[in-house]
């Protein structure tokens, strides 16, 4: 195993050791959403023809959990290492900034995919699921998780205290994921809010991901792919730059 592979392995093991909290917890939360919203809205909301509301909800919930957990993985690992001081063990190693980037984001993607799959597997017990275009599903799942893992890396480098990270999570990540069309199609919104939604990169992640399941979406999956792809490129460049200069980790 080379250096970055060991770091990736350690980062995966870190969340897997506490999988009850890092995997089972988020899956349970998503199931509660599915049961409650599904039950309450099944007969009132119809997004696409031939697709029940509960079925419509599943991909959005899986993606939302995937995104939030990818973010949580890299950000909480970094902030904990910073606060505990054990980040020094990594700082002393010959690992390059690209090694750090690949390992932290890689572990975030794995956690995101594990949670997303978990949500999906459990939902399959309650409702019908379909996969029209599995490649689209995979592309958006991996890119979305990488995007959020990278954002988590930036937030983890930036934050000095847990409450700063919690603020980032509660005031940025949560609203943007909730307002991205997980629970509704943005076509049901008034025009102003449709425009606002189009400015939210999370919307494209969820919409593109959902296209893979139903072959239907609010915007073209190619548009979503390019928005998600360019967002990923931008945040990756920022994260790699911050790691290279040792932002807040090397004085």
């Amino acid at each position: 195993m080379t250096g970055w592979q060991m770091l990736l392995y350690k980062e995966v093991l870190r969340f897997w050791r506490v999988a009850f909290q890092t995997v089972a917890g988020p899956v349970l939360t998503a199931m509660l959403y599915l049961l409650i919203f599904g039950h309450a809205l099944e007969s009132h909301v119809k997004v696409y023809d031939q697709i029940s509301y509960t079925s419509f909800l599943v991909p959005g919930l899986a993606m939302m959990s995937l995104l939030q957990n990818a973010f949580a993985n890299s950000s909480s690992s970094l902030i904990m290492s910073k606060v505990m001081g054990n980040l020094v063990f990594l700082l002393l190693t010959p690992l390059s900034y690209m090694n750090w980037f690949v390992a932290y984001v890689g572990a975030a993607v794995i956690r995101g995919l594990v949670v997303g799959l978990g949500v999906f597997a459990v939902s399959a017990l309650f409702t019908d699921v379909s996969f029209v275009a599995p490649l689209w599903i995979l592309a958006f799942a991996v890119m979305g998780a990488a995007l959020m893992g990278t954002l988590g890396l930036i937030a983890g480098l930036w934050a000095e205290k847990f409450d700063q990270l919690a603020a980032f999570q509660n005031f940025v990540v949560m609203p943007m994921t909730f307002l991205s069309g997980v629970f509704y199609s943005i076509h049901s919104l008034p025009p102003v809010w449709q425009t606002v939604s189009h400015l939210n990169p999370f919307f494209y992640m969820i919409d593109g991901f959902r296209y893979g399941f139903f072959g239907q979406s609010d915007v073209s999956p190619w548009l979503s792919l390019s928005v998600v792809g360019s967002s990923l490129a931008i945040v990756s460049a920022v994260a790699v730059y911050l790691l290279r200069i040792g932002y807040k980790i090397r004085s």
Partner: protein
Amino acid sequence: MPAISFQSVSKSYPSPRGPQGSTFLALDRVSLDIEQGEFFGLLGPNGAGKTTMISILAGLARATSGKVSVLGHDVQVDYAQARRILGVVPQELVFDPFFNVREALRFQSGYFGVKNNDAWIDELLESLGLTDKAGANMRQLSGGMKRRVLVAQALVHKPPVIVLDEPTAGVDVELRQTLWQFIAKLNKQGSTVLLTTHYLEEAEALCGRIAMLKSGRIVALDSTSELLKAASSNVLRFKVDSELPKLLADKARITGRIVQFPAHDALEIEQYLAAVREAGLVAHDVEIRKADLEDVFLGVMNKNKTPSQERAA
């Protein structure tokens, strides 16, 4: 080629107090070469810049100016090679609470790209008295045990240059013994050792050469034996029950009731004792001993009082 080379290294930090934009100079053009195979001591009071030097060496901080290299590898330009050569024991007692001792060592070994390292890990555990703790979670270990793991983590990639930043601060006698035996053995086998410590008797016993650092400058740099020779060779030590007159007290090192004067010859000793008698005091338990590193250290530190410290004193 020196094992460690500092060439005119300065480091300034933004001043935490003081006006906006002002800086605090933690290191002031420090130059120092440590040869391969040396056991080198870096001494100085808190805030002298010892940890700053080690941080720059280890790549945890960047020098504001100057160059630092490890066996010829620049710590910034050629950082990967420099860090492979260094094994650094950090001063803070840090650990990763998710893993046990053996895992921590395997990870650290892996970050350095060292494969199939279990034999050496076992030897490290054995040498540091950690074998029966190998499966214990880091959280369950006592402070002394955590310190041992830090040492093992620093040595896991068999570095030829070992850096210990106050490794025995707050550590029990037994561990200090084990630790020094082990480090001395590695030094005999050819490893270079750089040590910072507050325990001057340790530096005296272990280090062949010593640098004394004060306010970011090297104020003394010599072999331990030369430093001891250069100091006043004797110390007059006694106890008094009440306070010494100011004129005498300024020349003495006073610890509670114990008073110590550096003295070169018998005349000087007689003069001190006479002065004590004239002040109406009685000296008990009078003895004359050889000067040790602590005397040298205090002598050097007093000689190099900076103006601001004079005012504060």
